[in-house]
């Protein structure tokens, strides 16, 4: 009995730790974007912002399951994914400000972040065009037998594109180790799903492929974390890809840092319903339920706040790259 009790204690400790780790990443993504909102009016970050706010549970829940060498491909809306996968806060802000200290030195900006050594393999601002690249990367991983998993994120708009269906078909045909993650916010820019899709259930259709299919509508990052672990297990055991369909609510406008509930295509009431289960607040409540003291949580939050402040200040103070940078890293 004593032994069993001891083991349970260990498990509980790990769960608490997991919850806290997830919260750290959620809080980082949220606070980083709050800071962007605060400073965007200064017109120093001259890059179109597609904000992650509302999406953080998906980004964090999935990326937290991944190993450092696993590879993520994403979209122009990738702030949360980038931070959750790489933790590179300095580089994140330096790239937003287009400074020499960033890996891409401002050539990519908000829409085209990339950190290959941290497994963040790139993005596309052409909807769905990154999906086949991820599938090809998964093919190479399988061929090389390196055990790396590829995760590709895309929105529901990508489901309208040929590249999505073509890539899904190829991945299923070739049995590739790839996790397709559809982050469904119900809109392609401002056009609702009902105005774009001649079918009622994407998961029904994808389940007719030789593919694992998982679906969830939740803002609970722990649920998504567990679901992703299940997905990875399925990919390994069935030797088939997995398609995950995850609903979320985009808090801000399609592009830009403001709300757009007065635009007429969606309502503030809808937002308020979702905000009741905001992923960051929800996880914070869980920590309190795990008997983590509020002061301890605040301490963690202040730590992250300070890191963000430092990164932001360094980015603002850094220099722009020399103009010859234009001709670096290009094909000649």
């Amino acid at each position, binding site marked *: 009995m004593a032994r069993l009790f001891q083991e349970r204690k260990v498990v509980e400790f790990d769960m608490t730790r997991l919850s806290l780790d997830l919260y750290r990443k959620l809080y980082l993504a949220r606070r980083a974007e709050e800071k962007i909102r605060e400073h965007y009016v200064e017109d120093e970050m001259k890059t179109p912002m597609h904000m992650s706010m509302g999406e953080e549970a998906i980004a964090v829940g999935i990326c937290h399951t991944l190993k450092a060498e696993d590879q993520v491909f994403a979209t122009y809306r990738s702030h949360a994914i980038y931070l959750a996968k790489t933790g590179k806060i300095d580089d994140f802000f330096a790239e937003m400000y287009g400074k020499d200290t960033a890996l891409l030195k401002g050539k990519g900006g908000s829409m085209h972040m990339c950190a290959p050594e941290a497994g963040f393999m790139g993005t596309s601002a052409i909807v769905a065009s990154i999906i*086949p*690249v991820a599938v*090809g990367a998964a093919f190479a991983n399988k061929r090389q037998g390196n055990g790396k998993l590829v995760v590709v994120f895309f929105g529901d708009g990508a489901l309208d594109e040929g590249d999505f269906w073509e890539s899904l078909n190829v991945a299923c045909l070739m049995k590739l180790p790839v996790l397709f993650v559809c982050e469904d916010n119900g809109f392609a820019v401002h056009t609702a799903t009902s105005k774009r899709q001649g079918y009622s259930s994407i998961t029904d259709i994808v389940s007719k492929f030789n593919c694992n299919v998982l679906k969830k509508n939740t803002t609970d990052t722990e649920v998504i974390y567990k679901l992703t672990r299940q997905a990875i297990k399925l990919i390994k055991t069935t030797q088939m890809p997995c398609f995950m369909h995850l609903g979320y609510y985009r808090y801000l406008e399609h592009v830009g840092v403001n709300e757009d509930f007065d635009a007429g295509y969606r309502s503030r009431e809808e937002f308020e319903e979702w905000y009741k289960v905001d992923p960051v607040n929800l996880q914070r409540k869980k920590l309190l339920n795990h008997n983590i003291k509020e002061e301890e949580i605040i301490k963690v939050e202040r730590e992250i706040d300070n890191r963000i402040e430092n990164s932001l200040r360094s980015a603002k103070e850094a220099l722009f790259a020399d103009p010859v940078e234009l001709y670096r890293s290009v094909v000649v």
Partner: protein
Amino acid sequence: MRKITYCEALNEAMSQEMERDPSVFVYGIGVPDHKRVFGSTAGLVERFGMERCFDTPLCEDSMTGFGLGAAINGMRPIHIHIRVDFLLLAMNQLANMVSAYKCMSAGELNVPLVIRAIIGRGWGQGFQHSKSMYSAFAHIPGLKVVLPVTSRDAKGLLISAIRDDNPVICIEHRWLYWQTGEVPEEPFTIPLDGANILREGNDITVVATSWMNVEAFAASDILGRRGISIEIVDPRTIAPFNDELIIKSVAKTGRCIVADNDWLNCGFSAEVAARVSEKCFDKLKSPVYRIGFAPTPCPTVRHLENEFYPNAVKIIRAIEEMLRLEPTDLSKEDFYSHERRFKGPF
């Protein structure tokens, strides 16, 4: 030295590179089928297996993105299209993804992707199986474009393309597949940089691309009998475009005709004309003259198709006009006829 066909040279280049480097693989629609892309992929599947030589679903755009993804993860894919027209379905991946990936990863990710595509012509190929399109690809920074003409170049340029860490599009004219030439047996490379003087001459420079080099040779043989000495320059690699030999040649002859196997407007011929004007203005005895496809879709029926394409006769007439010569009697000349050797269907 032994002589092999252009097609055999392409095949040998791929085969030797696959042997040398296990990361090289070949794929595309119909690549391992019984026709083997006009024979250019013959023997590869038997030698290297379906793992490294495979067919694909009909999805050119995503299979191009697939090649990009495999390339950034250390593979060396060769994607083959039996017609360059089909490659237009991949223009999104080429222009939006493949060309920019190295730059947008700060040079941390290389894209050693080769795309082979074939220009069709003749025997009723029609407007969707006969385009060249290379000017459009060469327009995009980040893509290299090569147009091998000789068997030797087919092998040397393709091996260079496979070993290059950047995306290279290799555009092959269908009619060149039967041309034979001396090709070393061992693997060798020809840098993707700079032109090749196929025939030296003093009176006029003809810059010819792809199949038009064959037409330029015919023109040169005929006018040579009248004492006209034509220098034929094959640019070979049009992106990056190293114009050094072309400029040197025009500086010597003072006259330049560009015979391009493509439409003229905004095409590679315009680039050559512009470079020659910029760099040889004071040496030019007459304006640069361009010959290319008629500005129409390519018709299927023979007599209209013959009107559509540039040929040796058009080159001869252009040279005569530029040198103010009386027209040569061509009534007894025997020009290349594709239909004499090719009875279709594809």
